[in-house]
């Protein structure tokens, strides 16, 4: 594996940056419905989610030693490929954040690595069947499974509590929703912070900073946990708005059913070894919560926009990953990697500045839905 001090530092910084975007992109998964129903005030919700993500990062000790395991040939994964893959994942995370689209950070990272691998080592280094069976098919099944569970859950919740006084029902489901959303946050911390820990540990091993059997250094665990929880606390308000207000108007019982469904599907898939994207599960649950309540409306145009983004995730992140690898390779050496890193940082900063023209924040995240985030016709958010 190619390794030197500059490349190592750049990979570590890029990995922590990806971890940060992973956090703020995915705050919505756990907290969008709680914010939309008023079960938690926006700042409290993101604070709670950040704390649970931080704790979650320390709870699971099994760290994936590699990324995109089984999808690309291990020998093809160099540090430059990892760097380019991270840039691909980062770019997709930021672009979907700008447009307020819930999208899987894991799939973005896999797409970035696949793209960089394709251009670095050729098509033979990517296992097509594994890509389909581990990423594409689960991407279709995740929302469907969540829709089924959340639809049934929402229906049952409304039927069973139809004679319960509104105040008892509202209070009870708010408490239940906080509990189930907390579970989703904790699960997110145990799963997603591990990806960054794995990448940094891999880079440290490749650079002979630590030995193969040294385990994850404590500073890597703390840095990854801090990065993802900091991102979570800043709150990806744009994605929260789409998930909490855009897909359907959520009432407290629906929010409770959606979060329960998400937690159940995530835990079950983890237990039975059928990995499903947390983001896709949570989005499916919100749609199911809309379908399960009589006369509730699901905004299918918003759902379709999200579905298209999911279809494009892999090729788009792969394209950027390939471009990043080609750029670094063409310029060559440390300068190549530093140039690509600098360009990526500049573009990210530019996207942030553009997003300030129509900011979404804790103050307006629950405003009446006027259209997709990041689109011209959207006014209030």
């Amino acid at each position, binding site marked *: 594996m190619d390794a030197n001090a500059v490349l190592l530092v750049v990979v570590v910084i890029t990995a922590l940056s990806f971890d940060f975007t992973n956090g703020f992109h995915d705050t919505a998964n756990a907290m969008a419905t709680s914010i939309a129903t008023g079960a938690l005030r926006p700042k409290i919700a993101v604070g709670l989610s950040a704390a649970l993500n931080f704790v979650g990062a320390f709870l699971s000790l099994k760290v994936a030693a590699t990324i995109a395991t089984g999808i690309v040939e291990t020998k093809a994964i160099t540090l430059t490929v990892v760097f380019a893959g991270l840039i691909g994942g980062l770019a997709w995370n930021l672009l979907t954040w700008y447009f307020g689209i819930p999208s899987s950070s894991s799939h973005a990272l896999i797409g970035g690595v696949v793209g960089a691998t394709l251009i670095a080592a050729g098509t033979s280094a990517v296992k097509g*069947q594994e890509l389909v069976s581990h990423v594409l*098919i689960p991407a279709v099944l995740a929302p469907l499974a969540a829709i089924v569970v959340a639809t049934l859950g929402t229906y049952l919740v409304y039927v069973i509590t139809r004679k319960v006084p509104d105040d008892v029902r509202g209070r009870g489901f708010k408490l239940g929703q906080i509990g189930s959303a907390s579970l989703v946050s904790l699960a997110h911390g145990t799963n997603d912070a591990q990806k960054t820990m794995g990448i940094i540990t891999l880079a440290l091993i490749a650079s002979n900073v630590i030995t193969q059997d040294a385990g994850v250094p404590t500073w890597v665990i703390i840095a990854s946990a801090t990065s993802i929880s900091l991102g979570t606390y800043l709150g990806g308000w744009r994605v929260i708005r789409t998930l909490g207000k855009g897909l359907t108007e959520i009432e407290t*019982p629906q929010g409770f059913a959606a979060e*329960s469904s998400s*937690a159940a599907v995530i835990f079950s898939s*983890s237990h*039975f070894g059928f990995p499903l994207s947390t983001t896709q599960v949570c989005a499916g649950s919100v749609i199911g919560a809309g379908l399960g309540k009589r006369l509730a409306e699901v905004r299918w145009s918003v759902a379709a926009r999200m579905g298209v983004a999911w279809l494009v995730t892999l090729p788009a992140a792969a394209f950027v990953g390939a471009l990043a690898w080609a750029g670094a390779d063409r310029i060559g050496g440390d300068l190549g990697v530093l140039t690509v890193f600098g360009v990526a940082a500049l573009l990210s900063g530019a996207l942030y500045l553009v997003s300030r023209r129509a900011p979404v924040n804790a103050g307006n995240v629950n405003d009446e839905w006027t259209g997709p985030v990041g689109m011209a016709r959207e006014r209030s958010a």
Partner: protein
Amino acid sequence: MSDWLDLAALWRVLVASLVAGAGLAAAFSLALVGFSSGRVIGRVGAGLCLVVVAAGVVLGLYVMLRK
């Protein structure tokens, strides 16, 4: 087909998700019905439902942490 899709695992995920997701949500709802009934038997039933929900949460945490 099995090379592309682990149907056995998928079925398990679906059944477990339905039991845990919809089932526990229903149990929590029954607890609210029991608490709002104003009768002792209702409150006892509500307590039992909450015990079932708590057991489900503990099981979920156990599953998550033993990975």
